């Protein structure tokens, strides 16, 4: 496992660009307990990203990649949106699906992997924006949860269609005016975490990415639960600073301002009884942690 899979033929080692040599020597493939603290310490699995300067999505992407429990055995499924601009720079197997199809593609992929590699654990992680998850792909998202497909769905929620100019999305807050939604959002933000719970997800978290240790815990537990129990869902607030009129240094503060008590991104975690029992067996000490806001 791990780095055994990514050896460079010795004849070509000296001519390989340095980023590939570093990936082989310092990448965290196969490292026990990998996490967000590896960012800046080890070779990251994202080379350079093509997002806007200061984009919170870029740091969210780095945290997610740093926190995958087994990146060498993970396949990520993306969809159209800002996230699809980053996937070409990622050193984890990934598939770009048609807009909204990501959970359908992931369903087939997970099943195929379980047939192809019956003795190995292969993680499938969907990472898509709110347009792909909640609007265009809502059918595929929900159907995969109804069917209890064993993979994790991560939604980067920036509350609008960012890279097409700021159209209204289902996750936009009511009344918000965007460049391409001048009349303001007409209805409430779709409560997808609530829908996820009632649709069969065993582990649901809604949060911002302002606290990396909390992101690490959520990503890790969601993927572990998806392996053994059933579908999991994580909704991360990654504001589009361009479309909400912020400067590049203001993304972190925007997330902090949105996660306070009774704010729309106040931390919420739901763990089903089955998932909780499983997590207790995986890591009993860590589960006796400080109480988060748990909703059931």
């Amino acid at each position, binding site marked *: 496992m791990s780095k055994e899979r990514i050896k460079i033929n010795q004849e070509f080692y000296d*001519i390989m660009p340095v980023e590939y040599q570093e990936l082989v020597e310092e990448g965290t493939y196969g490292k026990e307990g990998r996490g967000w603290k590896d960012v800046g310490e080890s070779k990251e699995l994202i080379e350079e990203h093509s997002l806007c300067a200061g984009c919170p999505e870029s740091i969210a992407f780095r945290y997610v990649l740093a926190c995958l429990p087994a990146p060498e055995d993970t396949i990520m499924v993306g969809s159209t949106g800002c996230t699809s601009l980053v996937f070409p720079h990622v050193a984890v197997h990934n598939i770009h699906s048609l807009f909204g199809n990501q959970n359908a593609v992931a369903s087939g992929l997970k099943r195929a992997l379980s047939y192809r590699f019956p003795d190995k654990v292969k993680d499938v992680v969907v990472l898509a924006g709110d347009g792909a998850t909640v609007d265009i792909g809502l059918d595929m998202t929900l159907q995969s949860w109804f069917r209890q497909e064993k993979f994790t769905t991560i939604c980067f929620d920036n509350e609008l269609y960012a890279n097409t100019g700021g159209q209204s999305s289902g996750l936009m807050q009511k009344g918000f005016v965007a460049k391409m939604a001048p009349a303001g959002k007409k209805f409430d933000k779709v409560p997808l975490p609530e829908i996820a719970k009632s649709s069969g997800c065993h582990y649901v978290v809604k949060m911002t990415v302002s606290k990396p240790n909390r992101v690490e815990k959520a990503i890790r537990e969601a993927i572990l639960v998806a392996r053994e129990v059933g579908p999991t869902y994580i909704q991360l607030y990654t504001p589009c600073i361009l479309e909400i009129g912020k400067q590049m240094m203001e993304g972190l503060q925007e997330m902090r301002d949105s996660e306070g008590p009774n704010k729309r991104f106040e931390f919420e975690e739901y763990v089903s009884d089955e998932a909780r029992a499983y997590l207790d067996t995986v890591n009993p000490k860590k589960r006796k942690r400080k109480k988060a806001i748990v909703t059931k």
Partner: protein
Amino acid sequence: MSNYSVLKGPEAFLPPAAACEGVILPDPGQGLITGSVAHEDLVMEEAARQFLSAKVPTIFPGPLVLWNWNETAAKKATAIKRLYDVLKAHNSSALHIPMPDYRPKYPKINPEIEINPNHPNLTIWHNKIDVCMFVGVHCHMANLSLKIIRGGTDCYTIAMCAQAGHEDAMLTFRDATPEKINKLADTVERVKASGNFAVNNGSA
């Protein structure tokens, strides 16, 4: 039978696909020279002449041979390195520049040390490469690169393909194995020893 010749460019911003012009892939034991089917031994000799007469002969090893996937990949790497050493002994300007993967890198690649299938012309131009050989590149990415190079540069392209060959290369092998790559290195040495390696390249 097509009369279309796959010649050095620059042919056009978007050159026609040679397959659409009637160029067909070779059968086992054969190759293509400017789109015409020829016996593989003749193709070997022509490739050797092109390499030996080039100012900057270059090998572009792709992911299938750069990375140690299996025993065959390792043997191919050894054979390719030997071919490079033969070229380097003849011409100190010879290069081998890797195509580690196919990511459209941002903001841009360093054309001095790597080639990317989405803009291979940058590496050709930067290093003034006039003859190149692709080996170990997945076919769809090789096709993309070959068309871009033919469209925008005057570089002579050779494809050492492990599958059925490439119509859009000026010269193509098929069913590449470590033995076949070694045979090409042997052929280069033999043609070099003969001293007769002048070529007459047309242009589009």
